[in-house]
């Protein structure tokens, strides 16, 4: 099954990259850009903007390579770090003077890289703990975030502000995400080993300068009302927390030590120590506050893109937790697929909820999104369950699952969100009520079956289905069949052609999958393929006939309703 995903991932990635570049290079009308509220989020405002940004960036890169080349010709009088600093400072000047954001972003990254490399050089031979360097980089990120707030009021610096915001937000968020996991806590434990940063006056001075700058800009931003007070409070808290980390004595995060093994299963049966639990609680709460805080901030600032970033971080949080808790399930493809289905449907529910609360409901679009995001993964999951390999993965002891599992949390969130949506749709009589009920019913039933009902010993010793195995095979095949028929009927009763077409596609896949499943082993190969060909014709004919019949029935009904 994962081979299938691997097979798909590259074409999807390539198509995605091409799509991105086509959109990126698409010629936009100038008037359009000016009217757009979020114009400063565009990578390119016009074709002239794109080209000049690239050329300025190239000139900085070429300058770096030129200095590198002459440096080599002259016998390396300058170190690589000095060249990086020189080019980054020049790039920063060009970026600011011409307001070219690509150059500015690259130069800022270059400056951060220079400080990191220089600090590593200063720490060399003194066994200074890595935490000091790490905290220095985090301080720089916070500085960037604050600088973004200082820049954002002037129209000319709006895009510059976005560059600072992204460069500030991403490292801090990534750190919080990392330290909220077991592997991140291990890293935190590792970087607290070693001597205090006071052993190097250069690092001490750098950290002091960063800290003073943060406090200075924070006070300035507050005095000019450039930043919200709760936002400043969170930033202040983060600075204090990071400062504590820089001073932290060596931390033992786990009760057991297993130094050699770096594989993912490393953490499966290792428990956190007291300090490990404390840090885990702190970072998990912080990451939640940060993600949801951004969503809240977007409402105060009335900026939709900030809302999207916040929701993206919430989604990323679920994915990070998914990967972390995945090893509790012994990498069972069934549980992983179930989690993916639940994750997608949770996202879908949030989407429908947000849209319906904002009263921005376009049934034609929502119907399709609902079918693709909700019904397609569910159907394929049922396909997996009704197959032999699916049943083999289903053959595990329910009691071995941890009580506080990812799936359980997702299912609870899903059901709670859906209850609100369900109630809202029921009251406003929006035409998605039946579909929502349909999806909830199936997912709830599946969650019960997978997480509660017993399903061990589905196969005999000779690898054949046992009595219980046959029972579940029949149940899942019936569930799949009824789900597909249900989709067709949903379309029929609600006059939605898209659902009818989707159901017919699923039905034909079902016929083919079962044909392969049951007959491939028994028939001569040529007869099998001839049979498959004839089946294709028959399925095509029935599909066409069935579709026409359904559509004409819907049209007749519409006409009679209009009369």
């Amino acid at each position, binding site marked *: 099954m994962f081979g299938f995903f691997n097979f798909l991932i590259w074409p999807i990635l390539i198509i995605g990259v091409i799509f991105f570049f086509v959109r990126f*290079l698409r010629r936009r009308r*100038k*008037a359009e*850009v*000016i*009217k757009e509220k979020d*114009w*400063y989020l565009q990578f390119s*405002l*016009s*074709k*002239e*903007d794109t*080209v*000049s*940004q*690239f*050329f*300025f960036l*190239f*000139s900085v*890169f*070429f*300058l770096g*390579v*030129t200095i*590198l*080349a*002459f440096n*080599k*010709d002259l016998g390396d009088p300058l170190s690589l770090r000095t060249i990086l600093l020189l080019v980054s400072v020049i790039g920063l000047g060009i970026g600011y003077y*011409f*307001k*070219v954001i690509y150059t500015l972003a690259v130069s800022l990254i270059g400056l951060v890289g220079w400080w990191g490399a220089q600090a590593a050089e200063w720490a060399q031979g003194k066994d200074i703990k890595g935490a000091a360097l790490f905290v220095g980089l985090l301080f720089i990120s916070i500085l960037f975030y604050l600088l973004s707030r200082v820049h954002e009021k002037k*129209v*000319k610096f*709006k*895009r510059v502000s976005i560059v600072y915001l992204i460069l500030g937000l991403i490292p801090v968020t990534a750190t919080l995400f990392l330290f909220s996991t077991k592997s991140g806590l291990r890293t935190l434990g590792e970087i607290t080993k070693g001597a205090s940063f006071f052993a190097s006056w250069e690092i001490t001075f750098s950290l002091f300068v960063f800290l003073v700058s943060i406090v200075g800009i924070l006070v300035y931003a507050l005095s000019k009302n450039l930043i919200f007070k709760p936002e400043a409070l969170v930033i202040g808290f983060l600075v204090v927390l990071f400062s504590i980390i820089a001073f932290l004595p060596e931390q033992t995060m786990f009760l057991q030590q297993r130094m050699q093994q770096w594989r993912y299963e490393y953490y499966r049966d290792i428990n956190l120590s007291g300090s490990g639990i404390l840090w885990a609680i702190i970072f998990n709460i912080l990451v939640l506050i940060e993600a949801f805080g951004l969503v809240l901030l977007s409402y105060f600032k009335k900026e939709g893109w900030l809302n999207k970033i916040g929701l993206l971080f919430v989604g990323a949080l679920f994915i990070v937790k998914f990967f972390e808790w995945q090893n509790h399930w012994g990498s069972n493809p069934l549980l992983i697929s179930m989690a993916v289905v639940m994750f997608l449907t949770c996202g879908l529910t949030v989407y429908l909820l947000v849209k319906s609360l904002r009263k921005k409901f376009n049934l034609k679009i929502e119907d399709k999104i609902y079918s693709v995001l909700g019904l397609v993964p569910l159907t394929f999951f049922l396909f997996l369950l009704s197959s032999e390999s699916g049943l083999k993965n289903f053959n595990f002891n329910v009691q071995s699952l941890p009580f506080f599992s990812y799936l359980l949390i997702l299912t609870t969130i899903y059901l709670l969100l859906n209850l609100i949506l369900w109630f809202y749709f029921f009251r406003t009589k929006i035409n998605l009520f039946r579909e929502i009920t349909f999806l909830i019913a199936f997912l709830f039933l599946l969650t019960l079956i997978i997480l509660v009902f017993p399903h061990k010993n589905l196969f005999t010793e000779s690898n054949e289905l046992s009595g219980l195995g046959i029972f579940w095979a029949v149940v899942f095949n019936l569930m799949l069949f009824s789900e597909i028929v249900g989709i067709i009927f949903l379309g029929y009763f609600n006059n939605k052609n898209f659902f009818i077409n989707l159901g017919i596609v699923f039905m034909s896949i079902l016929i083919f999958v079962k044909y392969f499943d049951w007959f491939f082993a028994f028939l001569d190969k040529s007869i099998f393929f001839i049979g498959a060909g004839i089946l294709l014709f028959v399925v095509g004919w029935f599909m066409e006939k069935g579709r026409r019949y359904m559509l004409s029935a819907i049209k007749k009904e519409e006409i009679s309703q209009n009369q």
Partner: protein
Amino acid sequence: MEDQKITEYIQSSLDKGKSKEEIYKELLGQGLGIDAIQDAFNQITTKEEKEETQKRVIRIIVTIGVILIGVGIFSFIAANWQEMTKAVKVSIIVIAMVASYTGGWFLREKWHYKKTGEALLLLGAIIYGAGIFLVAQMFHTRGNWPDGFILWMIGTIVMAFAAESSSLFYLAIPVGIIAIVGHPFGILTFGIFGIFTGYNPFLLTSSFLLLTATIVTFIAGWLVKKRMPPELKEFY
């Protein structure tokens, strides 16, 4: 007001630079319903989309055509390359390039086949790039391979300014990226290699060429930025 008249009114208002909101307000003031106004807007959008699609199809077709012609010519030349004399080889490259540029310019400027002309100009720049490497190979020129890409990029930028062709600017971008990525590898890896062997193939000419590339790209960026539409200047 009839549907046709509403559509015409909206179209002329949009051409005058009025915003959607203003047009809505005006038409609502004249007693029209929201649905009727929306329908008229949709009609205009559909018409524009149709035209845009047609244009895109033409652009795709001619670009694919150009690529196919290019591939065909290159494969023909490659098949007969060994048998040709140096003079014939150079002539083929120069003639193909000049013919492409001339044809492209005439098609675009004189006969107003904008897309086809642009595509031919692009082909000319590609032939120019291929020519750099073929000539270097023919005369066994000693040099660092990314230098070829720098020369290609500089030539393309100059041609882009001369012909005022945005597709040539776009071509210069990936070519420049290859040069930028290629050179440091050469400088750093051969540096390490040179410590052990005492042999350093990196040439001083590359350093001057890199300096030229720095100056050319900076000036190009500056000049292109100056051409920015005046409406967008408030953002800079």
